[in-house]
């Protein structure tokens, strides 16, 4: 492994680590309105946050099992789709996480 490859791998690992927590917050914020997976991905991508299906769907399941999301299967355009939205606990969590994000963001802006 060359040093540049090693550096690239390290950057990729740290980038993923940095993104992991942010994605939960982004997904929760987008599900204030009901969406299904594909449109949620597109909405996030339009705002500059690409997320692949292999990351999004397990994340949605985890958030649902934690009681932060509710989901329902419904037919739309002749296909069954699973629609997600924030649960009351999810709304509260989004508010708390949003405040925490602002705090961390302002601290980091000062540090960086």
């Amino acid at each position, binding site marked *: 492994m060359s040093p540049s490859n090693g550096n690239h791998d390290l950057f990729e690992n740290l980038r993923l680590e940095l993104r992991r927590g942010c994605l939960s917050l982004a997904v929760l914020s987008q599900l204030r309105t009901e969406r*299904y*997976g*594909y449109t949620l*991905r597109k909405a996030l991508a339009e705002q500059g946050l690409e997320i*692949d*299906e*292999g*990351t999004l*769907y*397990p994340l949605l*399941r985890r958030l649902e099992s934690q009681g932060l999301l509710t989901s329902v*299967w419904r037919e739309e355009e002749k*296909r*069954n*789709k*699973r629609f997600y939205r924030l649960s009351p606990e999810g709304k509260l969590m989004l508010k708390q996480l949003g405040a925490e994000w602002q705090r961390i963001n302002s601290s980091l802006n000062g540090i960086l």
Partner: protein
Amino acid sequence: MELLDRYLQAIEFWLPKRQRQDIIAELSEDLRSQIEEKETELGRKLEDTEVEAILKRCGAPLEVASRYRPQQYLIGPTLFPIYRFVLAVLLIGCVVPRFLIWLAFLLADPAHRGYLHMENLWVTVLYFAFITTLAFAIVERSGVKLQALNTWNPRKLPPVRDPNRISRFGSLFEIGAAMVFNVWFAGIFWPRPAVDFYGLRITIAPVWQVFFWSFLFLAVANVAIAGVNLFRPYWTPRRAGLRLLFDGVGAGLFCGLLKAHLLVGISASSIPAAKAIELTNLINTWIARMLPWAIVTMLVILSFDVYRIMRLRCVHLHGGSIGPAVKDLSSPMVNGN
């Protein structure tokens, strides 16, 4: 859509059973939407290579399925360092002595070079590895680990260890044991042409005198080192070097002793002369056969002595020490006595 169905089927195999249908339905819907959107954009059906590109970007089936599973392990990150340490100690304890014995036989008696049976060795190694892994997997799944983690106390942790400090108890024990041994050794084995022992007359070769006085000198020298260690309880390069020298000379003498055929004859009124000669030869042969074991023991002792010197050199050169020990700055070892 055949490629897509094959892809989903491959993922489905690795998914948790209860959620399998649900996950596949959702993933299928997403991938079909991607394909349809691309087809709308191009105004035609997608080629297989284009579908393949979408699926490849999504990830290998096993990788995709693994994201839906909780993280699983046989031995977790907390226990793993202990597991690796125990496994290493067991494997070294199993392999190294056998290798040293084989080496000793090879050096001392090449006729026994086949002593190391590799098949048996591998079975033993696998057996140890299996039992250790099983034991740790059981501990991982039982409540023992959590109990141990919750009941620890800083006061019960071992004291900070200085590998160059010599235990006073150890020095006292060494002096006491050496005095008792020397008195016994001198009383029984004092050089004389023959020894009477419970009706047996044992005749010893004259070369025994050389061994006797050499061993006695080494024993007294080691007591002297232990005496200095008692009052200056830190190893110094000079003392560690002397210990290596004495142990090396002792090892050489002991190996020479085993090969020297010291027993000249045994006689007793109740034993016929021919039987006595046969018995003498048998005893000399068995003593000589102890040589490989003696070499192994000596090699282990000398390795410890060499390691001690290397550790001291490391402290002197780099101000650090080999191993996890914390260097005690108060150690009076700079004035090498």
